[in-house]
């Protein structure tokens, strides 16, 4: 039953340990392979940990827990770039910049990482929406 598509769920993070970026993240041109690792017990905080450069990782969170109104529109081109068969396979994650405290920690809403949970490919999508910031306070 390998071809069966599974629905994205909260526990999906544990099911997709290794993902491949179809485009490198801006600023990190040589890195394509990352492990998606759960950092806290609740599965809210995860990390994208580079498999190419030891010690490099990004903290990521599913935005719904912090930004319930955030509904990024992903263009058709992103789906074809990822080779996605269904939007149901896609999970959106936001990159965190950890501050000294929770109050100074920010999330990048302008460029979420979209992960296809079926084929384990991902890309950081640049949304050209002036209302979205690369450094939105995590807690309002």
């Amino acid at each position: 039953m390998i071809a069966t598509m599974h629905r994205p769920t909260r526990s999906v993070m544990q099911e997709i340990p290794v993902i491949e970026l179809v485009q490198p993240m801006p600023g990190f041109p040589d890195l394509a392979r990352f492990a998606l690792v759960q950092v806290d017990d609740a599965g809210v905080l995860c990390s994208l940990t580079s498999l190419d450069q030891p010690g490099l990782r990004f903290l990521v969170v599913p935005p719904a827990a912090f930004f319930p109104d955030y509904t990024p529109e992903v263009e058709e081109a992103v789906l074809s770039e990822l080779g996605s068969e269904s939007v149901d396979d896609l999970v959106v994650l936001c990159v965190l910049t950890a501050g000294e405290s929770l109050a100074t920690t920010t999330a990048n809403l302008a460029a979420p990482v979209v992960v296809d949970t079926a084929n384990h490919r991902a890309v950081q999508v640049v949304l050209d929406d002036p209302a979205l910031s690369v450094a939105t306070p995590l807690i309002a």
Partner: protein
Amino acid sequence: MLVLSRRAGESVVIGDDVTISVLEVRGDVVRIGIDAPRSVAVHRAELLAQLEQSNKEAASPSTNAVDSLLEALRSRNGSADS
């Protein structure tokens, strides 16, 4: 760098399938239209620079920062509203 002078309404074609048109020139603002295949990413340069900077700042947070973030998230989840 190739430098061209164009008037409003005129265009430049790049390769087979990218056309850049000057739509309007008003003061120091030039409105341009870009016609390109969906596979060609078109972004404002400053947004990409911001994103690059943001990614670099986000990369590899210190263990201390991650620990305090975890602690803060835990207490946030633990209390209904605080």
